[in-house]
């Protein structure tokens, strides 16, 4: 049994900030393709976040970069079909276009392989978001309604023309980053948003206040199981992970394994399975991170760091 020794990453997209800086020449290295000054600066227009780990992120990225090949896309639903072959005989991906990327992104978020992942879609560009909405309206199948889609446009609301689209797992566009943090630079890079929850659960489990499972009612012996806790503030509902999943899946999804979201049986507050798991894995495997996270409020560094990172 392979055990994940790491907690779910706070924001797997983090590395993209470095890559974006490379594209813009701020950081050393980077792709030659994007090194032309005439194309700079590059702006991040959209991001898919929430990947539970490297494996998941790479799978999604590859699928998005190879929509003509990915086996995650059922043949009946495949949008991008290779019509040419590369020299090595492999099918050649048709050239990117804004529509193709959006449509494939839309498709991949609907594909069973990724459907139940705790993904989150960020849009930082109005034009792109318009195109997205347009596609969503035309798509024959909607995204799951529980898919969080976040928009964080440039404050000034200056309309910019999309010059070029070269999305990877996350799209990058040319634009000038404004001084104030917005877009990708405003994304939280660490577990800071989880601080409150972590603090709560920390107190619960450190003081062995698990009590009984919110779902099945069984007593929860400390340290003898994998327990998840409600992430809503003030709710100290704790239960078996499996119980939580059964509860959140509900009667309609008995065949499924992974819940997506639901409501806490105790506080009836909204729950997101990704968030719960992040907290749980952080509690189980992220001793250092938790310690770090809990220390920060005292020093009040965490927000400043995030701001600095964003300012970059």
């Amino acid at each position, binding site marked *: *049994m*392979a*055990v*994940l020794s790491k907690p*779910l990453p706070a924001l797997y997209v983090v590395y993209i900030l470095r890559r974006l800086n490379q594209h813009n020449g701020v950081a050393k290295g980077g792709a030659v393709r994007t090194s032309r000054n005439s194309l700079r600066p590059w702006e991040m227009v959209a991001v898919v976040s929430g990947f*539970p*780990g490297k*494996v*998941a992120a790479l*799978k999604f990225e590859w699928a998005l970069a190879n929509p003509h090949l990915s086996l*995650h896309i059922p043949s009946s639903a495949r949008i991008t079909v290779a019509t040419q072959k590369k020299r090595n005989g492999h099918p050649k991906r048709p050239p990117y276009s804004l529509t193709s990327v959006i449509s494939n992104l839309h498709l991949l978020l609907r594909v*069973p*392989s*990724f*459907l*139940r*992942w*705790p993904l989150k879609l960020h849009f930082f560009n109005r034009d792109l978001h318009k195109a997205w909405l347009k596609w969503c309206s035309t798509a024959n199948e909607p995204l799951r309604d529980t898919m969080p889609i976040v928009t964080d446009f440039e404050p000034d609301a200056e309309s910019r023309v999309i010059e070029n689209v070269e999305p990877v797992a996350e799209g990058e566009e040319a634009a000038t980053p404004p001084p104030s943090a917005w877009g990708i630079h405003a994304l939280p890079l660490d577990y800071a948003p989880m601080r409150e929850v972590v603090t709560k659960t920390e107190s619960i489990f450190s003081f062995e206040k698990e009590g009984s499972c919110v779902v099945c009612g069984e007593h929860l*012996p400390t*340290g*003898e*199981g*994998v*327990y998840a806790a409600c992430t809503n503030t003030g709710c100290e509902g704790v239960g*078996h*992970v*499996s119980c*939580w*999943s*059964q509860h959140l899946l509900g009667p309609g999804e008995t*065949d*499924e*394994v*992974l*819940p997506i979201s639901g409501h806490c049986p105790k506080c009836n507050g909204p729950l997101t*399975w*990704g968030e719960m*798991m992040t907290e*749980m*894995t952080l509690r*189980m495997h992220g001793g250092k991170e938790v310690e770090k996270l809990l220390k920060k409020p005292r020093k009040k560094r965490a927000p400043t760091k995030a701001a600095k990172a964003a300012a970059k």
Partner: protein
Amino acid sequence: MASADVFQSPPAKPPPAQQHYSMISSSPELPSLAEIAQRHSKRPAPLRSGSNAAPIPATALTSFTSAKDVLRQAPDVDIEAERSPSPKPKPKAVRKRATKAQPKPEATGAPEPQEPIVIPSSSPTDKPVRKSRSKKAESAQSTISSRVTKSTTTSKSKAKKKTETVSRHFETTKEKGKAVASIENPQHIKSDIRETDTTHAPDADETEVSAPLEAVMPRRRDWTPPPADGLENSELLSSSSKAPVSKEVFSNLCQDFARPGEKEPIAKPSAEIAEFMKKRKLNDLPANEQASRSTETSPTKPAAAKKKKKIRTITELATAPYQLPELPDVLLAPGNAETLLKHFDFDGAVKAQADHQRVVMDYQETKSKGKKKKAPAKPRKKKAGTAEDPILLSPSSAMKQASNVDFLFGTSSQLQTDEPAEVIRDLQAAIRASNQVNDDEYEDDKSGLWHKGARDIDGSLLEFRIVDSSDGVEEATRGSPSPVPEASPTDNDFPDISKIILQSQAGSSNLPTTQTTQSQQTIPSSRTTVPSSDKSAMVPPAPPPSRPATAAKTKRPDFTILTDAQLSRKISTYGFKPMKRRSAMIKLLEQCWDEQQPANSAPAGPATSNSSSIVSNAAATTAPASAPPPIATSPAKKPRGRPKKETAATASTAPVKPASKAPESPKRSPGRPRKNSGSQSPAKSKVTTPVRRGKAASKVTKIEIADSDDEEVLSVSDGRSSPDPVFSSPPPLDLSISEDADMSLNLSPTDQESSSFTFITKAVTSAPRSTDPQNPSWHELMLMYTPVVLEDLAAWLNAGELTRVGYDAEVSPAQVKQWCESKSVICLWRANGKGGSRKRY
């Protein structure tokens, strides 16, 4: 000295006989001459300068130094030579010139410097310069030589009239030759020439470099001229004859020869060695000439290229016949051949006269020479049955022959001590004879393409076949004549492909007759090992005698005798995929045979014949084989061979499949159900065939065993159409037997998946939750978005979890992956694409 050289090159065309003599005599004595030449070191400089002055002569010089190289390089240089000569010889457009004019160009081309050299060596009296040179050679030179030189001198003056750059040596040679002929009898001339050659040849060497000449001679001796080359060249020459080119080339060639360097070495060989030299020279001379033509500057390089062209590898040998058309043009210009002939052979001399009139004559001569050279190799080949090209076999035919080879296994001591091969063969033949009862001769007779043709046109052949399959009596009647042909499948096989193609075109009616004739012809050869030896490279003699099994009856052929290649081929004819295990293949074939026999009787009779020539051939070959046909181990056993593979391939799927693994279904069986399940599985009534591949459905005509789509089936393209009727009956049978179990799997892939998925889900979710946070259950891991290792999960599921849930089968990791992806569970393989295993996630 120089005069002698001149003799050799120039005389070649007008008085070929004389030239030949001169050539022969000169070659053997070269080294001594070279030494002499060294003494006359003075000469070389003027010669070189003279040659350099004139463009052609310059080439001659280079060729001289490179003459050795040139000899070997000949093929490569040829191209250049042909090109280069064309512009130069323009004035010599007429062939008549070539014969006669050649001397002219030489004369014209030969500037003064060369002449003086020659003259002095030969006769001191003629000119002062000559005298100085002759001093060295005086002892060696005879009075005859002096005469010759005189004649040359006179001729030179005449030759000078000609404007071309040809070396003087040529002029001298021609003149000399003429003079000699007129003055003396041929015998005298020969002797004289020898003397002169010996003396003169060194001069040429001296001019260029004595060392190379010496080195060359030993090389030639060592170098056993590959007969193939000679043949090729001769053939090439024969094949391509270009009159204009030949003229030009010829003239150029003569000039080149005229060059002191080249001619001298050529002349050196003694008349005694003439025969050997002829062959060698034929090869070499053209090369020299070409080299000289090509360019003075780079004689050595072209030589290397020429060397490369020579056939040294089997592949080259094999491809050579096909390359012939190209090579002849490039390698040997008609002119070259002519020159060669003239120089070397008496025959050439005689022919040369005719050649002057026509280049065609030259070709014939070259051919004859080539035959002489190759004589040992070719005639045998022709005997073998294939006409000219028989040597080269197509891959398939080569495989056939190779498969027919008999092997004796044993320690070296055993093999040595054992009785002679004949005894062994006799023993085997006797054994086979005893076993022959079972064998099927008739199939062989009707085999493959022949039968097709027969079928198409006449019903008679069809009747034949039917009779054969059904009745042993008729077979017996034929048996007396037929057995032999059948017995020597190798012989038949050999010609088969090419002949079949040709014959098929010719017509079906001819086919039967041709077969019989061929078989009869081949038979003697097969029996006598000698003819086989001709082919020996490709096919060992042993098989033919052994195979002549007379008894060909409906009984099953002994597949154990077949080689793996044959077995696989036969299997492919039945529409099955190739199998790795020999035993499995044999069993399968036996089963197919058993099933086919009844089927053949009614409809298949003709079809079978058409269906696969290969099969019939293979059967024929196999049937005679000594081993008693192992009665088919139950067909059921056959599947086992494959099933093992399948099982190995997919452990998880194993439980379902094990019941009956169809011989047909290959390793992929586990994968197929999925594919099929989606689209085809339910639709197809026939259990095995349709399911296997989508292709099968598309290709209605194909054998039901669409699985056989593999290469082998395709290879039997002809068989395709025919096999359908024949095999239609048998394949379903086989499939039904073996694949029934598979079918169940295939038919309900989707259903299976869905059911298995629900069970997997149930198994995962119903598993007891772990009490150790550090060791969560699979369900908890999935809930935690932890990547799941498919192999581990599959093993866990198969370890009893599925049975606990009520699912009485195993799941493959691939299926587990599908399940994971359907559930958005993050999964990965323990083994990455590169074969390594993951340690971290």
